[in-house]
C-alpha cells in the first residue's frame, strides 16, 4: 500500500561526506566534503566509517542552523555486522535512535520512518540516512581489500560515503515528501553476489509498478525516477522489464540509476557503484540541490537493497532484494 503524507514533511537539508576515491564521482561537486583519508585518520576502517556518519549528520544540521539537541530522532543504518558504525555514531550524537537495516535501501526506508514520525507530530526535526565504507564492507561481504580476485564485469564497487537528510515539518521552499511505498522482499532466484544489479532489478520494478499504479500515475508524470544502485546492468534489466510491461521507449529516459552514473564511464568500476552510501550520497546532495534549483518538480527515489549476508550465499541461498520509494515534489 502506498503511504500518503498529508502534512508533506520536507527534506530541509542533506549532508554528504565521501571518501578519497569518490573524488572521481560525477556527483562529487554536490558533496559537502570529500575526505582524502579513507579512514578519516582513525585507526580502523570501522572507526572511520563512524566518523563519516557523524560528519554527514553535522553538515545536515549546520545547514539549517540546528543543534543536535534539537533533533528528535535519528534513523539510519549501514552494512557492517550489527551496524556498529551507525550505532556508535548515534552514541556520540546523543539523539534518540533506531537502527534500520534494509541493506542499500536504508537511505529511503529511514526517510519513510522519519516522515511518519513527523506526520505523527512526534518529531520537529529528524535525521535519516545511510552510509557505507568500501574497505569495511568489502572485507565483510567479499574478500580482504588486497586480495587479487578477478571481478567480473557485473560487479559493482562499494562506495565510501555517508548521506543524511534533515527532515522537518512542511515548508514551501523545500522539497517535500508526498508519498512513499514500502517494498516487498522479492526473490527471482538470483544467487551471484557479484551480480547484485540482476538480483535487485525485480524489486525496483515491483516497487515502481506498485507505486505508480496506486498513485494512478505514469512514468511521464515524473521529471526523474532515480534508482539507488542497480548499476549499469541492473538498470538495463529494469528497463527491459518495464518495456515488457508496455512502457514506451521515450519514457525510459526518465529512468536513471545513481550507481550506474556514480563513477562515470570508468571501466575500472565495472558495472558501477553500490552500497548504502551510494544512493544516500546522490539522493541527499544532487537530488535535493537540483530540486531546490528548480530542475525537477516531481521525483521518485527508489533505493534498492540486496538482503544477503556472506553466510547466506555460502549456504547456497538465493538473494532476496527490496526496494523502497519516496515521491518528492517541489512547488
Amino acid at each position: 500500500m502506498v503511504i500518503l503524507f498529508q502534512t508533506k514533511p520536507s527534506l530541509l537539508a542533506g549532508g554528504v561526506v565521501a571518501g578519497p576515491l569518490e573524488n572521481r564521482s560525477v556527483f562529487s561537486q554536490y558533496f559537502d566534503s570529500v575526505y582524502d583519508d579513507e579512514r578519516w585518520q582513525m585507526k580502523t576502517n570501522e572507526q572511520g566509517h563512524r566518523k563519516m556518519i557523524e560528519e554527514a549528520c553535522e553538515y545536515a544540521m549546520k545547514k539549517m542552523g540546528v543543534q543536535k539537541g534539537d533533533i528528535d530522532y535519528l534513523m539510519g543504518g549501514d552494512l557492517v555486522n550489527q551496524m556498529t558504525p551507525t550505532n556508535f555514531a548515534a552514541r556520540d550524537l546523543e539523539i534518540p535512535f533506531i537502527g534500520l537495516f534494509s541493506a542499500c535501501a536504508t537511505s529511503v526506508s529511514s526517510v519513510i520512518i522519519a516522515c511518519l514520525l513527523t506526520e505523527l507530530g512526534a518529531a520537529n526535526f529528524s535525521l535519516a540516512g545511510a552510509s557505507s565504507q568500501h574497505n569495511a564492507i568489502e572485507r565483510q561481504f567479499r574478500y580482504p581489500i588486497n586480495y587479487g580476485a578477478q571481478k567480473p564485469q557485473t560487479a559493482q564497487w562499494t562506495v565510501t560515503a555517508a548521506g543524511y537528510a534533515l527532515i522537518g515539518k512542511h515548508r514551501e521552499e523545500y522539497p517535500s515528501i508526498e508519498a512513499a511505498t514500502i517494498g516487498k522482499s522479492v526473490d527471482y532466484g538470483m544467487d551471484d553476489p557479484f551480480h547484485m544489479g540482476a538480483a535487485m532489478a525485480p524489486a525496483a520494478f515491483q516497487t515502481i509498478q506498485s507505486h505508480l499504479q496506486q498513485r494512478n500515475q505514469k512514468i511521464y508524470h515524473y521529471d526523474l525516477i532515480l534508482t539507488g544502485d542497480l548499476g549499469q546492468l541492473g538498470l538495463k534489466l529494469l528497463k527491459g522489464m518495464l518495456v515488457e510491461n508496455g512502457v514506451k521507449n521515450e519514457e525510459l529516459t526518465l529512468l536513471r540509476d545513481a550507481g550506474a552514473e556514480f563513477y562515470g564511464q570508468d571501466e575500472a568500476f565495472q558495472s558501477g557503484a553500490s552500497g548504502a552510501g551510494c544512493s544516500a550520497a546522490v539522493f541527499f546532495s544532487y537530488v535535493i540541490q537540483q530540486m531546490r534549483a528548480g530542475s525537477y518538480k516531481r521525483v521518485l527515489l527508489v533505493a534498492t537493497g540486496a538482503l544477503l549476508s556472506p553466510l547466506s550465499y555460502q549456504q547456497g541461498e538465493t538473494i532476496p532484494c527490496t526496494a523502497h520509494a519516496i515521491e518528492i515534489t517541489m512547488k
Partner: protein
Amino acid sequence: MVMTFIFAFIVGGIICVIGQLLMDVGNLTPAHTLSTLVVVGAILDGMGLYEPLINFAGAGATVPITSFGNSLTHGALAEAEKHGLVGVLTGMFEVTSSGISAAIVFGFIGALIFRPKGNID
C-alpha cells in the same frame, strides 16, 4: 638453458589457463579452483606423473599451486614406502610445503608493516 625458461613459461601458463577455464566456464570461485588444482597435483604425483613434469618444466611446474599437492603427496609417499601403513599416517606429520611456511611468516610480517588500502589504481 633458454629452453628451460620457455618450457617453464609455457607449462606454467597452461596450468593457469586451466585455472582460468575452471573459473570462467566452470563458474568456480577462486577458492574452489585452487583447491581443485591442489587435489589434481596430489593425484598426478600419486600416479608418478608430476616429477617428470617438474623435470621438464622446472619452475613451470613448481610455482603453480598444483605443486603443493605434489610436494605434500611426495612426502607422504616416501614415508609410506619406508614404513608401510604407519608411514601413511606419520607421513602426514613429516610432510612440508615451503609455500605454506613462507606464506605464514610473510603474512605475519606483512600484517606488521602494511595497512589495507581501498585504491583502484
